[in-house]
């Protein structure tokens, strides 16, 4: 009875939220809310490093600015929120 449960992940029909890795989640989050790939007025698209983008996101959310995808940052990214980007584009 003490054997750990062996969970099986299932793709549920109609489920918009797909199982994704933490890195994928972070990339999606940083892009969606304007921390990555910012387009300037000139049309020039500046490629911000993930670490810089993470720091910027951590500052906005009042988290420790580590530039790493740490546990508290990941948890913040999973929390329900408004869809308006944090960084204006």
């Amino acid at each position: 009875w003490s054997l750990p449960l062996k969970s099986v992940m299932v793709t549920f029909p109609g489920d918009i939220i797909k199982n994704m890795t933490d890195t994928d989640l972070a990339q999606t989050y940083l892009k969606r809310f304007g921390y990555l790939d910012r387009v300037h007025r000139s049309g020039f698209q500046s490629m911000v490093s993930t670490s810089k983008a993470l720091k910027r996101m951590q500052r906005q959310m009042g988290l420790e600015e580590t530039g790493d995808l740490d546990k508290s940052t990941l948890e913040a990214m999973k929390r329900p929120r408004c869809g308006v980007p944090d960084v204006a584009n």
Partner: protein
Amino acid sequence: YQTFEGDLKWDHRDVTYRIINYSPDMESSLIDDSFARAFKVWSDVTPLTFTRLFDGTADIMISFGKANHGDPYPFDGKDGLLAHAYPPGEGLQGDAHFDDDEHWTLGKGPAVKTRYGNADGAICHFPFTFEGKTYTTCTTDGRTDNLPWCATTADYSKDKTFGFCPSELLYTFGGNADGAECVFPFVFLDKEYDSCTTEGRSDGYRWCATTDNFDRDIKYGFCPSRDTAVTGGNSEGEPCQFPFVFLGKAYDSCTSEGRGDGKLWCSTTDNYDEDKKWGFCPDQGYSLFLVAAHEFGHALGLDHSNIREALMYPMYAYVEDFSLNKDDIEGIQYLYGPVPTPPQPTTPTTPYPDPDETDPTDEPEPTKPVDPTKDACKLDKFDSITVTEGELHFFKDGLYWKMSSRSDGVLKGPFSISKRWPALPPVIDSAFEDPLTKKLYFFSGNRFWVYTGQSVLGPRSIEKLGLPNIYALWRLLVSDIFNDNFWYGFAQKIDNGYPRYTDIVFGGVPNDAHDVFQHKGHIYFCRDRFYWRMNSRRQVDRVGYVKYDLLKC
């Protein structure tokens, strides 16, 4: 707090809104009330008023939708993104959208408003007891008509107050059947349906016919969600079916098995493996009021704040007794000003003090913004425009705005003239600065004042200088306009009291211009709402609107 780039805001105070559709999660009156309270959050601290429209185009169009809902920013199913709104403006701008894959409540579980019964539409009280059994959801126990009901106090046996819960057997919403109840079975495209369906729709909303044949009568309505209904998934609105089989194992309650996100789900048939029908189990849900108040902040011009306790912080957090954070209040009042207060009696003062009594050591109050609702872009013309202290100044009725002469100058203000230059009257006909002495000359009517730092001389009469009116002053001014020491020379004439009046008219500029100033290497002549721009070769190279070219409205 932050505002959107360009401080986008409504140019009127009487903002209108319209609720385009409703969520099946809450009774429409609860949704109406949530939105009304959310608007009141902002109208309590600003001069803004919010009026609901029932048709036509409103400033703020409010709608519920799922996933791709008609704009470029699709929602993402349950949780994650809850809603979004656009900053003030025409069309889509100002609109607020709410993700209907969320479970919308008052923040503490299903908000079930009753109909009929004897409780005058009160909210269900969960848990309640009925014949010795405790209920945490609406029930059909004790009835033969299958209508779900609840008690509106903790003990039905004692208080006997009850009402009926949302059910398609009681009413529908939206559609074209005036809220009539579903009729089962009904025929749609020659097929018979015994329950609400999403067939025939691409938006995932459940509907039913309100007669026995939709194909014939085309009468329909949307089905309200029962409090026991699942959200999201592919069975929105259906109740969980217990026990259900999943991967060969039977489950008697909601489970997170099979999911990586820990969310509780259930099957809506007795065998998920065969039917693949599922949804998320009812939870606390999200407070429509709190989310709406946040989104309306965007719709009024506020961007996200990084103050965790602020309403405009991007993350959702439920708070029982909500009040706006100081940061939110400062933000919205930056855009629209505070709630107007009735004028207070003041001690009469001499509006234009005798210069002899003016103490040059008096420090004026620091310049600070007043009533930002006075939008410079809404003014057709200004009393006066000039360049002083390296900034363009626009004067109008006791207020002034200023803008740096640099190319990226941003308009600031309005500021109070009386706070900055206490001796001046509200209406300034003309003003200029002598760049050499930094003296500021202000003209109003037939009087003028000279400010040197905070000390003031005046008022003095321009008639004593032999100048009959302000236009004569400008004719005097333009006579020397291209002299190297033009401003200094003019100031000298004023100071000496011996003007050299020469009526010289330049080709192409009006001789009744009320303002002349140097700005970015050109001389500007202003009359009414227009300007004439002259280059160093005395050629008028541009005529335009002050509002659009100088103020960049």
